[in-house]
């Protein structure tokens, strides 16, 4: 195809337009759905956007939710650049939280914050990385695809956490509620605006690191090459197997930080079910963003907004909060279909004109 043609169509302007149109069509479809069940879509949107953008606390809550979401999105996006599909963010974040909790409880009270917080960081990353290790090994050896193994381990992870929370790590003083003992102050991550905590610094740093590594470093180059054409990469000496192991575990570590942040900053102790599907939402964000750093930031914000708005739907509209799952799924459908991509539109319009003019196809 002539390389000079259609220059406008290939610019980033086109991709933004295409993205906006995809999201817009998702909003339209969601409205249709709401209408069919007698709900007024405008009220619903007002509730979602009003409680978040129109409300000081709601607005800050978006960022609170963004923190774990950025981590879990990176947990998917980084391996995705290597061509790996990590669906295990949910489990990896659980194990990260567990490891951080165990470390905090083991090291004990009286630890100063400059020791305690790093302890949680390291433990959280190790926990998440270890949970990704088995799928990484299985994939590296060519025994089992990581999509299935990480998925299954999500369900195991929840039970592992439950076991510890109901068992060895249980807080003896709260017999009715299953949870661990409260963590000592030295381990807690401080907040500074509403509930927004230092995790946001870590998350943005991780995002920046991801951007720099993928786009500017040699390893990023090698990862992208291996992700796009593993055969050519192998033939040119790139250590593809080593990357599979390292990158998938790194993804696990990032998800582990998502869990760590939640319990160390928001919860203060480890409770079962502390994650409202952050792992899967991170998967959604990464794929919506095409695994690119800036888009992850944008999509992370969007999904956090919708998720936060969803919480108030229960109260305002009497709708289950998982209603917003529908909207998010629709967004992902439209973005995956990429139906608004200019060259596809062109093909579609041409063939419609073709048929209209009575040409036999």
């Amino acid at each position, binding site marked *: *195809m002539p*390389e000079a043609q259609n220059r406008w169509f290939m610019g980033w302007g086109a991709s933004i337009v295409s993205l906006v149109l995809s999201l817009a069509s998702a909003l339209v479809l969601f409205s249709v759905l709401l209408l069919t069940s007698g709900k007024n879509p405008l009220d619903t949107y007002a509730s979602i956007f009003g409680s978040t953008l129109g409300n000081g606390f709601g607005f800050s809550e978006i960022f609170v939710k963004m923190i774990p979401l950025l981590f879990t999105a990176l947990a998917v996006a980084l391996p995705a650049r290597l061509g790996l599909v990590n669906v295990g963010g949910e489990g990896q974040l659980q194990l990260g939280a567990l490891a951080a909790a165990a470390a905090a409880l083991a090291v004990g009270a009286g630890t100063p914050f400059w020791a305690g917080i790093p302890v949680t960081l390291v433990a959280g990353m190790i926990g998440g990385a270890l949970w990704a290790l088995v799928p990484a090994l299985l994939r590296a050896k060519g025994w089992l695809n990581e999509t299935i193994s990480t998925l299954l381990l999500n369900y195991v992870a929840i039970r592992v956490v439950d076991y510890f929370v109901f068992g060895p790590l249980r807080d003896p003083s709260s017999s009715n509620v299953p949870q661990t003992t409260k963590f000592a102050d030295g381990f807690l991550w401080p907040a500074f605006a509403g509930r927004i905590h230092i995790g946001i610094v870590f998350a943005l740093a991780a995002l920046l690191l991801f951007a*720099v590594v993928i786009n*500017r*470093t*040699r*390893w990023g*180059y*090698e990862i*992208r*090459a291996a992700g*796009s*054409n593993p*055969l*050519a*990469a*192998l*033939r*040119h*000496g*790139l*250590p593809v197997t080593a990357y599979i192991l390292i990158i998938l575990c790194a993804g696990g570590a990032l998800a582990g930080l998502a869990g760590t942040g939640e319990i160390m900053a928001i919860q203060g102790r480890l409770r079962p079910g502390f994650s409202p599907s952050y792992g899967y939402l991170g998967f959604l964000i990464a794929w919506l963003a095409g695994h690119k750093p800036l888009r992850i930031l944008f999509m992370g914000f969007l999904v956090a907004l919708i998720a936060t708005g969803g919480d108030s739907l229960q109260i305002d509209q009497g709708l289950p909060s998982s209603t917003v799952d529908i909207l998010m799924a629709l967004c992902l459908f439209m973005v995956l279909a990429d139906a608004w991509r200019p060259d596809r539109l062109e093909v579609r319009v041409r063939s419609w004109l073709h048929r209209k003019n009575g040409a036999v196809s």
Partner: protein
Amino acid sequence: MVGQPPAGTILLETRGLSKYFGSLKANDGIGLVVRAGEIHAILGENGAGKSTLMKLLYGYYQPTEGEILVGGAPVAVHSPRRGRGLGIGMVFQNFTLIPAFRVWENVALFLESWGTDRRNLVDRIASLSQLYGLDVDPLAFVRDLPMGDRQKVEIVKILAAGARILIFDEPTSVLAPHETENLFRVFDRLRTEGYAVLFITHKMPEVLRSADRITVLRKGGISATLPRADADRNLLVKLLVGDQSPDWSDAGPRRRSSVRAGAPALEFVNVSCRTDDGRPGLQRVSLSIQPGEILGVAAVSGNGQEYLGDLVLGLRPAAEGSILLGGKDLASARPAEVLRRGVACLPEDPLRMGAVSGMTVRENLILGHQVSYWKAGGWSPDTKKLETDAESTLMTAFVQSPPSLDARAGNLSGGNLQRMVIARELGRNPGLMVSYYLTRGLDLSNAQAARDLVLSHAERSMAVLFVSEDLDELFALSDRLLVLHAGRVAGTFEPALTTPQAVGLLMTGAAHA
């Protein structure tokens, strides 16, 4: 057979059949006559237009000019399905079989209707195979069958679909020698039963063994059509290749040898390897290349030369024998190690094996030696060095209008991609270059530029393992020639002491050194 036309009836005919791709005349004015009860061979070199002709007959291509007649009436074969409906059955080199299916299922798939009576179909297959000497178990899984038996399944498939004209495209390229003889016996049976058998090949012994009538294709047109009785080896070679010797005079006087003494740059000592499905690939191949020497490898595709690169790069283990690079054993070195030791490779399929289509030309140009383009241990790209090197590297292989460095490699034309990979590999000043089909897809001036580039590197003591199908090119560039056939070395020569004809005969197995 009931319903079969009497032997000699013209079943299929073409008149003035031509196919042009732009200015390329793939087929030019072909007049072919195919009769019932006759085995008709179409002989031609690679690129003579054989496969285009077959695709025209089968309905994959539509003719630019001319017509096809079946049973005396002109027809438009607008799809393979239509072709099947007209009684034309085709057996390709790449079988349209599903390995996971059983034999009968593969046959059923291509039948318009078979009811759902499996037993009936199984019996039909059994009786067909018995009748024509195609011994296959209808219940066997195709993936368990050797190539020869898979081919039998293909034949049963088209017979069951009612073909009366059976066309075979290079049928023996995937067969072992004893399977080849079986195939010809099948042809004989089919001939007796009144079918028309048309087979395309570049192998002369087969033509001489099996054909009743021979059509020789050359450069897209028919060189001659003659009955077997009138044909002999020398005549056929003359018809195939032409009287004139190739004009290397354009390439200038034979270049002075730049071969250096000392330890060989590359050495194979009795190297054997296996194919992916466990069959023998290379068998006890020995070769040796000095620094500055160009060793041409002449082989028809699929005769083992495809494993040479993999073996050198360490991607495929040698089942026996050893490979030495610069005098030192390769042992089980990984590609990174091999590349570090100064080896470069232009692969058979550069798009799939030598480039990352999702990346830019700029990024592709550093693949394999990317380390030197980053500072601070890999953190910061040396963009200035990258730009200058990229531009200068690219210019070595492009006579004019190189592609933009920002262009996506997957969007490059075949020729541009080829030159990009050539530029990259040679740009590393390797001590050994394994090159497959250097000038594939390149027009005259760019092909010459590529050859010149290789020659200039050879002058500076780069050794070259030069695999090519183009005999003219091999003769112009090589210091020595190695002929591979069926995974074995058929002979080693100095170009000045042999002729393309002789090498051609060895390549096709028609003669033995």
